[in-house]
Structures are given as structure tokens and as C-alpha cells.
């Protein structure tokens, strides 16, 4: 589903990715590990289409509407409520039965009680849960997750783990704690 050949990305004079080779097959669950600044986030952004490679080839066999991207930032509007945020993304991703789906997501990740509170009042952990709701809202075929367990408490982490366990689709996950996902993972690459 993802194929990268000789992939390089440069920001000005700084070379972040250099000649990367990667293959993520359909249904694969690949972990990307490496220290800070090794290019994990950059790789995910390239796969999501938010950045263009400096050189090399990158094929991502999924349309935009089938990609679920969990970034460092939660990508939610602080002045909108949790429900309004999901509703906006629901509209943009053309989700059927939007209202029910948004409600189900919020409930699944323990945010139903806070659905009418502004996202700006959420704690770090709740924001991460909301971001996870946003990511899975449209049932994506390809998951691109950047440190998904960051900021989650034990209960939130369990919810996410269950969701990932049942999810059959392809995933590329950047993490600095590969042991937690080792069972689920089908492959692992390390960036320097």
C-alpha cells in the first residue's frame, strides 16, 4: 500500500530523510522507531501528502478520504466543542449517518459527557482522545499515526489499543515505545 524508494527530504540545508526504502503491504502494521529528529514525523507527513519529497519515489495507494492521520497536534478547533469539531470533519469526509457516527466515536473514547465543551478546555489526554476520534471517524483504510499513545492515561491507552487491535487496515505508526505495540506489529523499521 505504501512503497518508498530512495526517498529523501530536505529542509533548506538540513537533510532529514536520506535514501529511505520502505514497503508497507496491504494489512501490514509497521512501526517506525528512532530518536527525536530522525524523521519519523516527516515520513508520516510525506505519506499523508502534506509534504512533497525532495527526491525519490513515494507511492501511497490510498485516496485522501481513506487516510487517517494522527499528528503531533490534535488538529481540532479550540473554540468549537468536541461534537462540533467531529461534525465538521464528518461533513468534510462525507460520512454517512454523521450524527450517530460522531456520537458513537465520542462514547467509545470516553468523551461523550464532554461533547458540548469547547476543545480549548480539554486536558492533554482528552485532546489526544479527541484527535483519535477524528482520525478513526471515517473508517480509514490507511492509518498514519505519530506517537499515538502520547498524553494518554492508562484508560485512554487501553481504548486505543483495543481499537488498533480490531482494526484490520494498514498502518504506519511512529513510536518511541515499540514494545507496547510489538504484538500487533508485522514489521519494524528504524530511522537514524
Amino acid at each position, binding site marked *: 500500500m505504501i512503497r518508498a524508494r530512495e526517498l529523501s527530504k530536505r529542509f533548506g540545508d538540513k537533510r532529514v530523510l536520506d535514501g529511505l526504502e520502505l514497503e508497507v503491504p496491504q494489512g501490514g502494521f509497521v512501526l517506525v522507531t528512532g530518536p527525536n529528529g530522525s524523521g519519523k514525523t516527516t515520513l508520516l507527513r510525506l505519506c499523508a501528502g*502534506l509534504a512533497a519529497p525532495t527526491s525519490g519515489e513515494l507511492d501511497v495507494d490510498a485516496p*485522501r478520504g481513506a487516510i487517517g*492521520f494522527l499528528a503531533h497536534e490534535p488538529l481540532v*478547533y479550540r*473554540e*468549537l466543542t468536541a461534537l462540533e469539531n467531529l461534525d465538521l470533519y464528518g*461533513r*468534510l469526509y462525507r460520512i454517512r449517518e454523521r450524527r450517530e457516527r460522531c456520537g458513537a466515536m465520542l462514547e467509545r473514547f470516553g468523551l461523550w459527557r464532554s461533547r458540548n465543551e469547547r476543545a480549548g478546555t480539554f486536558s492533554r489526554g482528552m485532546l489526544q482522545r479527541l484527535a483519535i476520534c477524528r482520525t478513526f471517524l471515517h473508517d480509514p483504510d490507511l492509518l498514519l499515526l505519530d506517537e499515538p499513545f502520547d498524553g494518554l492515561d492508562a484508560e485512554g491507552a487501553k481504548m486505543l489499543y483495543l481499537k488498533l487491535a480490531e482494526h484490520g487496515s494498514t498502518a504506519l505508526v511512529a513510536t518511541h515505545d515499540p514494545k507496547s505495540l510489538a504484538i500487533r506489529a508485522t514489521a519494524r523499521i528504524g530511522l537514524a
Partner: protein
Amino acid sequence: MSGYAADVAALARKDLLLELRSRDTLPAMLLFVVSALTVFHFALPPDSSARAETGLLWIAIVFTALLGLTRAFAPEREDGLLDGLVLAPCDRSAIWVGKTIGVIAFLVLAELVALPAFALFFHSLSWELVAAVALADIGIAAIGTLLAAIAAASRARELLLPLLFLPLAIPVVIGGVGASVAANPGSFLGFLGLYDAVFAILSWASFEYVVTE
């Protein structure tokens, strides 16, 4: 509603809702334009012509618009949210249309205060002036939204947006002042319409390239 129109509606609604909640841009624009008109009164000699006063009104409108435009992508910029919109399967130009509608709404609301204030402080308005202001709003919002996205990618965005915007605003001021004072406002109004059409199409088509890599 067709997909594109639905996206635009969702995005425009989002912007107006955000402004309603945070209430930071519109009150600033209103206060700014009334303050500017007050300053102009003191800057003009007591026997100044109606034309000079009209000219200053247009300056006030352009700079109030700039004030509003600097905040146009503020919510997206602050939390990296533009990524979220760009990731969505909708056409990127729909983001531009939604934002432009929002900017036009802000401008109109600001002018609902500014124009009566001007009539109060200086002299009464003609319908040609109001028509020119309406047409100018469209052009200003169209290029302003695109330029705000360009400036957002730079290091000095508050400085860059006025620099990018003002040369493009000169024809608008020419058209606007001309329509307000000339004997044949029709040609100036026609010119403003042409400006709007040309630059709206260009902005609509090129927005995609400005928010993606």
C-alpha cells in the same frame, strides 16, 4: 446540496461560528474603522472637499480589511489546523471559497458601522459609493484570502501581508474613489466588476498550490 457546495457551507459556517465564539476580529475592525475616521477628521483641513473625504473613506476601508485579513487564517495557523483541512478529501479551493465568504461577511459588518459613521462625520453617501464598496469587498476578500495563505508560510507574516496586498489594492481604490466621485460612475463600477471576476478566478484556481507542497 452538492459535495462542493456542502464543503463550502461547512467551512464558512465554521469560520463564522469561530468568530462568534472568540469575538476578537470583528470588534477590532469596528473600533479601528471608527477611530480611523475620527483621525481623518483631524487630519483634514476644515474646508476640505467631499472628494478628499471620500478618498479617506476608501483608505479606511482598505486598512480595516487588512486588519481583518491578518486574522483570516489565525485559527488554522495557531494549531496547525490547515493540515487538517488539507488532508480532507474536499477540493482545496473550497477552503478558499469558505474563507472568502467569511471575510466578505466581516467586511460587510464592519461597513454597516463605517458607512453610517462616515455619513455622520463627513457627508452623505451616494448609492454609487455603496455599490462600489460592495464590489470592492468581493475583490479585497478574494485576493486577501489567497495572500493571507501565502503570508502564513513566511517568517514575517504580519509584515508581509500588507506588502503583498497593497499594490494589488491600488486598482480597487482607483475604481472605488472613481465610482464615488466621477460623473460617470458606470465605467468605474464596471472596472471593479472586472477586477473582481479576474482576481477571484485566479485566486480560486491557485489556492490549491499555495496550501500544498
